[in-house]
């Protein structure tokens, strides 16, 4: 069966149907206008639930059975336990032993700890993953071994798909560091604290059945609740939902690499000299080593100038918490906490607020947080001469990362990508990105250790740093400089088979990943 492929607005050939469902090709930024009404899950009745509110069920297996687990269902999980997650794999272990087949796993992200799921992809328990695919899972998909086609969405795209009914979750299994018997749950407390549960909201609201799994059953009410018990069908108590040291790092570390520090230095200098960094700024940066260094340098500038950032959006780290506590940041709105300092801060600081991704990133919403951010620091595996970005595949063609919040964050006022010009001989700037994840019109500045390229569309930014002494170059000059050092790379070869689809924030298909050709 061949599915028709069409050229989308970004010039990429994409199918009109994925996994038997029709899809809409990407139309351009802000061009696709959704129609109709939001998806609605089944209407429950209190008469089906215990009057004393106690929904504790014997085991995860029992809860899954009671939820009517059967072939072809969509099972959602969140990734707040990160690489320490002990719950997601368990679901499929149970399903496999029950002989269930063709499940769709719909996580908000996957981690190396999920690699064992490959055996359930192999034995048919799981048909496909719609979420992020890292490391060996990505390799598995890229080699065409997964039965269904993977669908990759941003964090915002994921909640949009849930809200719009593109993905109908049959059972949401929500691990929770603390929960009460009614199903109210939060990210703090117990031995598996992850801080906040910013990725759980849409799942609990829209799934047909919701199971909360906790290793820390607390007295009702579990407060402040991020998952509200009214949405929850069953509560399961287990010994351990996660491995603490893998859930949050003891401490996030700024990079020690001299080159990355140089990039961070240049980024801070750019923010200051361009005037983007100013009193009252809203900002967001990730938890990577370079981003953390930038946060530290920015903090110093704010301090020196006596300025204050109005709000920062998490993933939070101790460096952001430091800004909050030392008075250089008014609020942290937080979807996930990356280290122990951040987890502690959420618990004790009223201005460090759990803020769901559903509110922050959903594009099919009445506005969201991302477009209000002045400074957005992001990464990429590749950027091309038109400033298009790739975050899911490497230049060798293998699927290796999820989109995360990257696409959503592109809507910020100033999108800045601090990147090494080449990584172990692999140039970051290419003629055409291997996989298109974000259109160049939304990417403003590339900052490398060998120079800064500003998107020609941002004439205001170019003007703002004239005569600043910053090493400004065109993106083409940067590309040529890298190729002079590394040599011109060859391109990977692909088969025609599509192994993954990349969704844009509005649910349209911006690009696909094809199967790696085996030489």
């Amino acid at each position: 069966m061949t599915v028709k492929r069409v050229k989308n607005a970004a010039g990429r050939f994409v199918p009109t149907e994925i996994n038997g469902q029709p899809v809409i090709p990407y139309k351009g930024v802000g061009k696709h206008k959704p129609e109709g009404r939001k998806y609605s899950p089944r209407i429950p009745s209190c008469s089906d639930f215990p009057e004393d509110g106690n929904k504790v069920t014997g085991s995860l297996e029992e809860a899954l059975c009671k939820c009517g687990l059967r072939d072809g269902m969509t099972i959602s999980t969140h990734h707040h336990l990160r690489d320490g997650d002990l719950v997601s794999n368990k679901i499929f272990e149970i399903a496999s032993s029950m002989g269930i087949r063709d499940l769709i796993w719909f996580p908000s992200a996957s981690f190396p700890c999920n690699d064992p799921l490959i055996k359930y992809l192999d034995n048919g328990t799981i048909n496909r993953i719609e979420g992020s695919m890292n490391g060996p899972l990505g390799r598995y998909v890229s080699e065409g071994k997964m039965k269904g086609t993977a669908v990759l969405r941003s964090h915002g795209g994921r909640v949009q798909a849930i809200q719009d009914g593109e993905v109908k979750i049959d059972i949401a299994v929500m691990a929770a560091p603390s929960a009460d018997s009614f199903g109210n749950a939060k990210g703090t407390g117990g031995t598996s604290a992850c801080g906040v549960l910013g990725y759980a909201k849409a799942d609990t609201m829209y799934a047909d059945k919701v199971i909360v799994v906790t290793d820390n059953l607390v007295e009702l009410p579990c407060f402040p609740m991020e998952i509200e018990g009214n949405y929850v069908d069953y509560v399961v108590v287990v010994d351990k939902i996660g491995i603490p040291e893998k859930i949050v790092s003891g401490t996030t570390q700024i990079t020690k690499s001299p080159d990355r520090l140089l990039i961070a230095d240049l980024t801070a200098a750019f923010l200051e000299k361009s005037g983007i960094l100013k009193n009252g700024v809203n900002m967001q940066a990730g938890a990577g080593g370079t981003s953390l260094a930038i946060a530290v340098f920015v903090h110093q500038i704010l301090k020196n100038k006596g300025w204050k950032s109005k709000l920062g959006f998490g993933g939070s780290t101790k460096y952001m918490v430091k800004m909050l506590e030392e008075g250089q940041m008014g609020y942290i709105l937080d979807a996930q906490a990356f280290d122990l300092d951040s987890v502690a801060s959420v618990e004790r600081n009223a201005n460090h607020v759990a803020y769901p991704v559903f509110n922050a990133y959903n594009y099919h919403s009445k506005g969201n947080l991302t477009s209000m951010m002045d400074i957005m620091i992001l990464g990429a595996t590749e950027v091309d001469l038109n400033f298009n970005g790739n975050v899911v595949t490497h230049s060798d063609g293998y699927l290796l990362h999820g989109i995360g919040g990257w696409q959503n964050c592109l809507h910020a006022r100033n999108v800045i990508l601090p990147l090494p010009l080449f990584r172990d001989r692999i140039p970051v700037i290419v003629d055409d990105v291997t996989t298109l994840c974000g259109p160049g019109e939304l990417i403003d500045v590339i900052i490398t250790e060998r120079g800064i390229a500003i998107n020609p569309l941002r004439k205001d930014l170019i003007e703002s740093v004239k005569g600043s002494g910053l090493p400004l170059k065109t993106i083409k000059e940067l590309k040529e400089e890298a190729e002079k050092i590394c040599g011109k790379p060859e391109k990977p070869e692909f088969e025609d088979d599509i192994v993954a689809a990349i969704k844009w924030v509005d649910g349209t298909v911006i690009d696909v990943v094809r199967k790696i050709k085996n030489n």
Partner: protein
Amino acid sequence: MKSAVAISGNTGPKVRSDCEITLQLSGKGGIAIDLTSKVKTLYGKSIVNLTNQVLDFFNIKNANVRIIDSGALPFVISARLEAAVKKLTDTELEYLPDFLPENDYSTTRDRFRFSRLYLPGNNPGLMINAGLHSADGIILDLEDSVATDRKDEATILVRNALRQINFCGAERMVRINQGERGLKDLLSIIPHNVNLVLIPKCESPEYIKKVEKEILGIRKKLNLQNQVFLMPIIESALGVENSFAIAQSSDNIVAMAIGLEDYTADLGVQRTAEGKESFYARTRIVVAAKAAGIQPIDSVFSDVADMEALRETVLISKSLGFEGMGCIHPRQIPVIREGFAPDETEIEKSKKIVFAYESARLNGLGVVALGSKMIDPPVVARAQKTIDLAIRLGLLEDNWIKNISS
């Protein structure tokens, strides 16, 4: 034939931008290449082509080559191959990658040498971006940072790095080995535009003269125009005692450095942060260097994480009369530069003195006074030095004096 199999280069989980090559000459069957590389998709063909080219250059027609590559650049791969070939065959040939035109520059005797960054000579990963960190000098080290059994391959790598890496205007320095090995090093590196040679563990003027003679010989033979400066490093009690004679031993010496790790070991004392044990040696080196009209350069500061302690050390160093310091991490460079540069108070004071002197001179006055205080000529000279330094560092405008007068 020396031995059957040769290995060169490095591999391992932490190795970046390098490769390990195992070369085995065979009697027949042509060249067989077994390549493992994380950049195989992007550069596999080019690595294989380069390998064939290099082996052909050395006239090797039959061999088994195993390459475990961690993203090595072409000049690194060819250096590793050449090193392996030279372990198996006797050859004078050198496979030289192109010499980048931007590397064709010379330096001057009196340029700043505030910071000079040490790079281990057998670690290509640290070399590639070294020029981006604005050190006054970059030292490709063949001595202490290279294991004894890796000296040959490091020399080839350093030679290729001198040709292929753009150090962005930093003074191109090489630290050679001691003794005969050091003289042999010169043969490999001098033809590739080395601006300055660091001579370790200097104890007498005689060795400097040997180095100078060797360099002169190479320059004459190859008709090289570039000037090669020398910087002896004093690292022993005997070296300290002979420091003035060493400093005077060649016109090409532009600076003299002290190495405190070896010096304290020679004395049989602990090296402390406070540095009482090396105070005499350091001041002695400063005086000897100043007497000989060259720059005294301080030892490296080894705690790369402690920037505050480095800052303090630099200020002490500057107050003793040193004009620069070694770096072992790029992050130390700005701290050292800022430390050695004149601060605002110094500049302001010097401006007043020089301005007073110039006004007195214009008015034909023999005596210079600032307020009610007389100023002696050496004070004016020192102020003028500070002003010159500030102008060259871009801390002061060239025509500052006009701006004051008008």
